[in-house]
């Protein structure tokens, strides 16, 4: 008996019911929901940072450390504002008459740019405050009984490592978004 590969392939699965329109729309909104969740986590983290460093203003011994804590609190407000300005989630419902693909692309570009420039609005603002706290730790009156010098260097290395890690992870995220932008451009390239 002669077997037809095309017929064999096309008959290999029973006809499936497509997902419901609600499921499809929910899947299409996945990016929006992911951004919204990320931002919510960031805002909650901001509240914790403000509370923790707000407390340090009163509990840390050295003036430089107190000033550094104030700086970090202010930097947190700045970062939260920038996150809202640059990376807030925009619902696909806001697309209006804009073709959805163009809307999705614009959102991807917006998020990619926010991630690419993260050093300037999310990392750098914290650096002076953290530096003041670390230096203040070294010159605090109780420093003789405080952590040894290598401990301070270790703290500096950890803080630097965390900030570098944050930057690197965000650049990876930006590259992933860039790939999706290229895909959309490839799909719409022959629209004229």
């Amino acid at each position, binding site marked *: 008996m*002669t*077997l*037809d*590969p*095309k*017929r*064999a*392939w*096309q*008959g*290999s*699965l*029973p*006809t*499936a*019911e*497509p*997902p419901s*329109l609600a*499921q*499809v*729309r929910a*899947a*299409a909104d*996945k990016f929006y929901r992911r951004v919204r969740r990320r931002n919510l986590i960031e805002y909650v983290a901001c509240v914790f940072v403000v509370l923790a460093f707000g407390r340090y203003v009163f509990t840390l011994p050295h003036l430089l450390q107190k000033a550094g804590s104030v700086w970090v609190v202010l930097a947190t407000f700045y970062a939260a504002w920038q996150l809202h300005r640059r990376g807030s989630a925009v619902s696909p419902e806001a697309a209006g*008459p804009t*073709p*959805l*693909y*163009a809307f*999705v692309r614009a959102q991807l570009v917006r998020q990619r740019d926010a991630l690419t420039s993260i050093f300037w609005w999310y990392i750098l603002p914290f650096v002076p405050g953290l530096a003041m706290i670390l230096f203040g730790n070294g010159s605090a009156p109780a420093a003789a009984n405080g952590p040894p010098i290598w401990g301070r260097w270790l703290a500096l290395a950890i803080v630097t490592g965390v900030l570098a890690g944050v930057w690197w992870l965000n650049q990876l995220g930006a590259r992933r978004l860039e*790939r999706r932008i290229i*895909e959309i451009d*490839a*799909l*719409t390239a*022959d*629209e004229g």
Partner: protein
Amino acid sequence: MTVSRTQQDARYLATAREHGAMIERLARGYEADVELRRDLVQDIHAALWRSFAIYEGQCAERSWVHRIAHNVGVTHMMTARRRRKLPLVGLDEIDGLLGNGDIEGEVGERALAERLLGAIHRLKPADRQVMLLYLEDLTAAEIGEVTGLSPGAVAVRVHRLKALLAEAHTAEEKCT
């Protein structure tokens, strides 16, 4: 021209009904894991629904649907963070569509479809696309339209594919 949300929904629903089974088969060609495949099918449907916001007859609807679906499938395949047991090969490197498995006792279209699937999973993205499209009975011109490959590149791959399928068929007949 702007496509209203209602038009978009209607177009999507009609297309999903017509091409639902093809999408399932295509997803099977790109993802072996059942759970991940379910997600992939959902992603393809979501991409299809989104795409009808901009579809204005740029190409035949069948080509458009395949193009969207393969785009999602290839992206899924390229970004899957799983270790492959075997390296991916091209149609010119694959050593027969039947592989080295025992085919005794396995006859019929179902067995052939499984063999085809095994071969599809070993192929590199472009060759995988061509094979899936060929098996879905798209013409060479349509395959070129979906994949963006030149007519020459499509012809070479289809020729090689036909030869491999003929070889597979001859081997199966010998064994049965």
